[in-house]
């Protein structure tokens, strides 16, 4: 009795010292909390997955997620360089060269498309959903675009780099990304030379990757650009050309020395603003825009105490009472990629992954093609009148089938054009098992089943009644209607505002 009491007391103190403010109370990890955790850290949790998480408890559930994110796995996608060697162009006419380069570009884009489809598949059904969620996060943080980096192998290598370090060390990730071939090309640091600086990377590494705006001066940028000089890319090889490197003295953020690239990054990592910035970005992505400041402060402290190791910081984030605050639940807008992957995880349909990629693109998120160097804005920005209709239409297509005439209007996606030519895609198996069908005898039961299965936020009674009314005529003799009707109703459920958030 006495021992238990001391233990409880000790853990209370531990918790208090951890958050030492508002959130001294522990997390009540009930079904709603488990659903919240899995909705934010995986892609569309099923009822069974939520149940298993509740049974395991908060700590074990978070351990499992993090174990998946940190596990070292060999790359599963084979990637090869697809480049035109200069020698192969020698002696060709301008027209022949152009033709060869265009062919090469097509083949190269095809490789990137295959990889994107692979990525989408592991988001939908892979065994490490948090890892892929983190890769998606970092793809928006350390972003690069295929429009500028016209080389699929470099884009894929960058993505694999983000995957390897997604819950590893931010220090290692920052250092690797700085000399990553795709990033060097995307932010022009491969053209940054002694005496002829290019400030692009110097600015963004401070503004977007580590410190946030307002935490450095224009002079710091000019000096940092000098420290970043000399990097070149040749094929897959990144090397430092010492003749192009500015080895003179520089002053960055108050430090004066012959600063080189590695030392510059250490100067940035040592700033307290850096842990705060990275923590704030993680909190915004996973918890949402309205998280209490204590949450980001705790995550920043964990990053500092663990020398930039991400897993312990993520553990603090996902076990923090602030993460489970009522006012954060059901308030985050799903990004298009999350929306299509979550939906497909829940239907269990085998949708061609390129179709999911194309659908997300129509909704405003094209993987490997962010709108700008900030990545994707996220939050409420995902929803405007056009994107909302696309989200509703495409969720409908993804559960009910795609018809070529649905593909008209907007977008020049090659995958969709191919699909439009090849006919259509339809689901191959019923949405409801026979057992489920047997249990659903009224239109209300069907509406409730679909809402519970596909929505994190349950619609009000009046809304559910309206949807039930729509399928009432289809219930003859208390028998669940045909799959086509069920899927038609699901399209309506997915068109509800509640389907856009989690």
């Amino acid at each position, binding site marked *: 009795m006495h021992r238990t009491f001391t233990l409880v007391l000790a853990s209370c103190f531990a918790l208090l010292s951890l958050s030492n403010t508002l959130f001294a109370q522990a997390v009540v990890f009930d079904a709603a909390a488990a659903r919240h955790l899995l909705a934010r850290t995986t892609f569309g949790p099923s009822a069974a997955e939520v149940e298993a998480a509740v049974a395991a408890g908060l700590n074990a559930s978070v351990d499992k997620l993090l174990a998946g994110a940190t596990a070292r796995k060999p790359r599963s996608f084979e990637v090869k360089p697809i480049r035109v060697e200069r020698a192969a162009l020698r002696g060709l006419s301008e027209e022949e060269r152009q033709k060869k380069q265009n062919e090469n570009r097509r083949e190269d884009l095809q490789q990137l498309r295959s990889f994107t489809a692979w990525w989408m598949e592991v988001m939908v059904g892979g065994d490490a959903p948090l890892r892929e969620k983190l890769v998606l996060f970092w793809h928006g943080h350390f972003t690069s675009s295929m429009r500028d980096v016209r080389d699929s192998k470099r884009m894929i290598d960058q993505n694999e780099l983000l995957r390897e370090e997604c819950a590893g060390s931010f220090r290692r990730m920052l250092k690797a990304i700085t000399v990553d071939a795709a990033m060097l090309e995307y932010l*022009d640091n491969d*053209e940054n*030379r002694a*005496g*002829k*600086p*290019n*400030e692009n990377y110097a*600015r963004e590494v401070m*503004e977007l990757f580590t410190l946030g*705006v307002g935490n450095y001066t*224009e002079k710091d*940028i000019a000096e940092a650009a000098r420290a970043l000089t000399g990097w070149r890319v040749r094929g897959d090889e990144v090397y430092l050309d010492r003749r192009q490197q500015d080895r003179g003295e520089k002053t960055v953020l108050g430090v004066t020395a012959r600063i080189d690239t590695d030392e510059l990054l250490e100067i940035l990592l040592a700033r307290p603003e850096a842990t705060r910035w990275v923590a704030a970005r993680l909190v915004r992505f996973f918890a949402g825009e309205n998280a209490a400041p204590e949450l980001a402060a705790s995550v920043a402290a964990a990053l500092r105490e663990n020398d930039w190791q991400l897993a312990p910081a993520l553990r603090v984030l996902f076990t923090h009472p602030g993460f489970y605050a009522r006012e954060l*639940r*059901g*308030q*985050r*807008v799903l990004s298009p990629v999350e929306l299509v992957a979550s939906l497909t995880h829940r239907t269990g349909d085998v949708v061609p992954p390129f179709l999911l990629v194309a659908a997300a693109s*129509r909704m*405003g998120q094209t993987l490997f093609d962010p*709108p*700008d*160097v*900030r990545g994707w*804005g996220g939050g*409420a*920005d995902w*929803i*405007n*009148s*056009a*994107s*909302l*209709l*696309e989200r*509703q*239409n495409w969720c*409908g297509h993804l559960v009910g089938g795609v018809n070529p005439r*649905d593909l*008209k*209007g*907007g*977008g020049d996606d090659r995958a969709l054009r191919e699909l439009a030519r090849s006919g259509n895609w339809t689901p191959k198996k019923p949405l409801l098992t026979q057992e489920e069908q047997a249990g659903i005898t009224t239109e209300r039961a069907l509406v409730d089943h679909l809402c519970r299965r596909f929505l994190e*936020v349950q*619609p*009000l009674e*009046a*809304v559910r009644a*309206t*949807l039930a009314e*729509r399928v009432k005529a289809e219930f003859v003799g208390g028998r669940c209607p045909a799959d086509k009707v069920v899927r*038609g109703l699901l*399209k*309506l459920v997915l*068109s*509800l*505002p*509640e389907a*856009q*958030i989690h």
Partner: protein
Amino acid sequence: MLRRHFLGTTALGAALLGLGRIPEGLLVSRAQRSGVERALVVVQLSGGNDGLNTVVPFADDLYHAARPRLGSKQADTLALNEHLGFHKALKSFPALHASGQLATILGIGYANPVRSHFSSMDIWHAADARGKLAGSGWLGRLAETGFPDAKEPELIVHVGNRVPFALSNKKHAPVAFAAPAGFRWRGGKEDLAALEKASASECMEDAPTSVGHVRGTFRDAVKASRNVENAVREFKPATPFPENGLSAHLQSVAAMLTAGFPTRIYSLELGGFDTHNQQLTRQARCLDELDALGAFQAELKARKLDDKVLVLVYSEFGRRVAENGSQGTDHGAAGVAFLLGSKVKGGLHGSMPSLKDLERGDLRFTTDFRTLYAPIIAQWFGMQAAPIIGEVAEPLAVL
């Protein structure tokens, strides 16, 4: 709402009279008679357009010294006067300039320039040095204060995917769409009716605020998409438009103007101006798209809508005077803006910044961008500028 009713009934009337397809001329005069209100079309050049190579000071030796590889010679520019020339991709600009429909504002910028794309764009959007912390955009505030009772969802329309902060406000959520053909709810009529009924439900207390936001967006989207669909279906350009993205978006705007939309602010974006390398080809490609403004203005003239429309073109900053080592330019400060329309006082405004007296290698601004916003608010919309963008000492005489 009334105007669209009017359009609808007269179109029906025309059909009943056996006219079949409504002749173009009739449409023009109808849109006009129904009293189209003045509208502003904003074209944002994202990435930081290099003003020096847009309006080129070819007669200045310092320009050529700073840009040995990127500098344009007089012969490569389109004549403006004996010192300045337009970039050669802006083929329609000299005529618009000569006929007084185009105002070119030189040396535009603001004090203590910020060289971050996002922070600088925020300042232009907010018309406030605090950027996003100001809470709303200048066009959003203009709509809020100028049209407090407007009920139409299309009061502000953004043609494109990303709604800029300039439009943000508490009262009038902008309608946005990129391609008109994809802008509609696909599914059965009865299904849509059920959804509309579900989204009309008033008992919202228990639902999260995010649900209410999406619900409002859905209602606006359904309404606006029907109107856009009709407008685009009935529109056949009278002018040949070039084939590019901005041109397509401008045609959508022309269609909406022709249909008599209640829109007071149209917003468009043209990206790709962040020319840290290969600037010559990259900027030319962008400005070639921008040149679609020539077709747009011709279209409006043909439909006699030109005196109802004002076009503002701006970018978040100009670029560094000296070229960098990659045949490009880094982020700079003062740049160039344009105002286009039949009511514009055309010609050069502001003054060309010195290429000698630079601020950390950048052009010093001679014209605060708020002195360009002020006449748009005051003369174009007939509203007080100060509550929207603060006191402006010397508004430009562009209108």
